[in-house]
Each structure stands twice: as C-alpha cells, then as structure tokens.
C-alpha cells in the first residue's frame, strides 16, 4: 500500500473522534449537558492517544513492524489536538474567559493545575515536531521529548482527581500506562 494511502487512513482513524463530535454537534445530539459531553470526550481521547503513542515502541519490538514509527508523530499531534480542544472548552465555554475565575481554578484546584501543566508540556513537543526541528535540536530533541512519559501521568492523575466515585476507567488507564512505562525500564536494564 502506498504511504499516502496509509497516511490518509491514519488521519481518518485518529480524526474520527473529532468527526463523531462534529456529527453530534450538527445533529444537536450532545445530550442535556453538551459541555460536559464534549469535555469528557476530548479528555478521554487525549489520554487514549497519549497511551497509543507510548505503545508504538513496544509494539515495534514485539512484532518487528518497524515502519510503525512513522505513525507516532501523527498520534502525538492528534493527542495534542484533543488536549487543546479540551482546554479550549474549559477556557472559552466553561469559564467564558473570566480571567479571575481561570486563575482561581488553576491555582486552587490541583486537578486543574495538573491538567493545565500537562497541556503546557505538550506545546514545546508540538513546536519541535517538524523534521527541521528534529535535525536542528539533535540530542536535546530526544531529551525534550521524554516529556511524553510525564504528560500521561499528569493526565491520568488529573482525570482521577476530577471524579468523585467509580474510578474504573482511570484505573484501567493507569494500569496500561504503568505497563508501558515499565517496558521502558525493562528495555533499559536489558541493554
């Protein structure tokens, strides 16, 4: 299969949660509390794509499917896209750009502080995701992009703290994340 077809398929798959949300908005089918529906939707897909991004390296090792690496950047960029939408919903629709309220939220509410930090950490990764930047930064690019290990931790803790009961989903994410991170530790020690 030519690369452009593969790439198109990846775009469609990674973009499908956004397409689905757009469909729900267009058909006015977001339920009684549309903001809550969209906030949850974008938050969930941010976490899932962050985890999917971390899955690429172990999968390559286990399956020998080396070209998988070519999808990793796209997955990361889509995770950042959903995270940014998640942020924008909070910023523009929930808080309606009320700066005092925003500041209070970020400073006083630890789960928002952590979520906000996670989003901030994504920004330099997005900015340095181009081929040119990778070449330019060289070894420090790798160092910088180690933030992908911290960001999902912040995300999962942020999600857990935002709930009041029934932690089954964040626990599932935490277990997957723990497995993905321990694979790295194991690889390091094996080397």
């Amino acid at each position, binding site marked *: 299969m030519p690369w452009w077809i593969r790439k198109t398929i990846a775009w469609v798959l990674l973009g499908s949660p956004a397409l689905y949300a757009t469909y729900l908005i267009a058909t006015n089918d977001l339920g009684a509390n549309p903001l809550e529906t969209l906030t949850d939707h974008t938050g969930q897909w941010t976490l899932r794509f962050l985890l999917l991004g971390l899955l690429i390296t172990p999968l390559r090792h286990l399956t020998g499917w080396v070209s998988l690496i070519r999808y990793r950047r796209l997955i990361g960029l889509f995770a950042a896209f959903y995270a940014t939408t998640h942020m924008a919903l909070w910023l523009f629709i929930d808080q309606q750009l009320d700066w005092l309220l925003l500041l209070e939220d970020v400073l006083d509410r630890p789960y928002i502080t952590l979520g906000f930090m996670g989003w901030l950490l994504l920004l330099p990764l997005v900015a340095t995701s181009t081929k040119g930047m990778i070449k330019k930064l060289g070894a420090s690019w790798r160092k910088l992009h180690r933030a992908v290990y911290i960001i999902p931790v912040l995300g999962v803790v942020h999600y857990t703290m935002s709930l009041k*009961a029934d932690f089954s989903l964040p626990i599932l994410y935490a277990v997957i994340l723990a497995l993905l991170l321990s694979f790295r530790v194991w690889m390091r020690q094996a080397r």
Partner: protein
Amino acid sequence: MIIKTRKTSDVRSSEITPEHFFQQRRSIIKAAMASIAAWQLPAHALVEPQGNLPAIPNLKDSGIGGGLSPTEYKHVTSYNNFYEFGTGKDDPKKNSGAFKSRPWTISVEGECDAPGEIGIEDIFKLIDQEERVYRFRCVEAWAMVVPWAGFSLATLLKRFKPNSNAKYVVFETLVDKEMMPGTRRKILDWPYQEGLRIDEAMHPLSMLVTGVYGKELPAQNGAPLRLMVPWKYGFKSIKSIVKIKFVEKQPATTWETMAADEYGFYANVNPMVDHPRWTQAFHRNIGEGLFASRDETLMFNGYSDEVADLYRGMDLTKFY
C-alpha cells in the same frame, strides 16, 4: 424516676410551631398571593403533563414557582445522578428498565409515638397531591427547573407522631441487586442514606415527590417516592425511599461519609462556599445547549426568604 404520661390534648414539642416559622408561613402565603396577583395566573395553571406513566390523581396547582420556566421533560428524565443504576448521567434511564415501583411500602420508625408502614397507594389516597415548580441545583454546578407533584414532607411525618427526641430525620433508598444493577458494585456504601434536621424536614417547602410533569415519577427520577429540598444541593433529595427514621443525633449521610470535605451534612446551596474542585458561585442550566448561559447561583438557591431563618447564627462556611 419521673414517668411522664401524656394526655391526648397535650401539645407535643414537635408540634409547636417556632415563631419564625409562623411568621414565615405568613410571608409565604403573602408572597404566593402577591405572585398570583402579579402573574394573573388562571385558576388551573398546571404544567402540561408529559410522558406516558399514570397521571397523578387530583393534582392541584400550588402556585409555587409559577413564574419559573421548567426544563424540558426529556432532559429532566434522562440526565441525573442515581448511582443505584450506574454512575453515568444517562445510566439511570438506561439501566432502570427492570425497576418496579409497586408494591411499595415505606416504613417509618425511631423516635415517634406511632411508628408503622405506609404503602404508596395509601399515600395517593390519604394525602392531597399538588404541583410545585422548584429550582433544582446539583452540587456539580448544573441546574434545572422542575415541576414536581407531591406534598409537604411534614404532612407525612406528622402522621407518625414524632416525639421530643426526634431531632433529625433519616431517609434510606431501596437496595435491590436485581432491579438496581449499580448496587452490585460497592461504589457507595449502600443503602444510600440522607438526613435532615427536624425543623428542615418540617419546613413547608420540604417536599415528598410522587410525580414529575403531572405523571408518576419514572424509575430514574426516584419512583415511587423521593425527597425534594429545593434550597439544598440535589444529592440531599434522596430517591426511591423505603425507610424514614426519627433520630436524636445527627446521622451519617452517604456523601458526607464518602468525602466530608466536599459534601457536608447541610449541603445548603451557597455561592460563597466553593466545592474544593469548582466554584459554586455559578451554574449551567441544563437544556440550553453548548452555549448555555452560566448563571449566578443564589443563596439557598433563591429560597432565602423562606429558609434563611433556619440557619440564623450558624457559620455556614463551617456547617456547609
């Protein structure tokens, strides 16, 4: 030992109306009269019935909340918390198909002279049902306006003759693993339990609800009998009640036990006391779409005139 015997004509301390209530009732009646005059309400101003459950028999209009515009029936009955059916907002409607609200008996016990049981059919037979439109404010900072059918909680409580030790009232929800799939997992410490101080319970605005939009309550809204205390956060208004108990000490309530720093016993709607994870100064109205207005939350959910006296002298930042 002093043995107190009571003549039937004796007035029990629980029957004495505190003066501020007495004054308050007058002000409620006055306000109600004024509102009727102001809005020129027709004699019969019930909300258009919705849904296909049996109608509430002989439903009267109370005039309360006549100026509020109710949230759509579909939202009222599809978006709520009722963890006995699952933790998602749409779970109660989705997972309550097996729920049966008949036969249904509520047992009333504890510090009262006439403990006993009452069936839901008797409640319909013995107690007049009226429609009241109340604001509903969830602790999660969303809000609705709902036309409930029912009657003042005090009407039912008095039938069981609470004694002078009855300082609080405790309520319990049914636990049934077959009909309520959410209770198969120990997400909360079932049965769900809530409580009110006796003066709060006896307040005329405290309501036992049998219906919504003129028809019997759907399972997801707490069929066949639930509490509605409009000046408190929604979680106080316990659903599908099977037990009412008069007690002397402040009872442990479900959410307070889960997270005391987030959910207090009083749980009065209070824009000045934030939830640790969000502000309570604002709420979002359900049913207004993605760009729903964010409204300022009112003290006691807008029922200050009626209930503020109950909490005179209390530090509401401490007793939240």
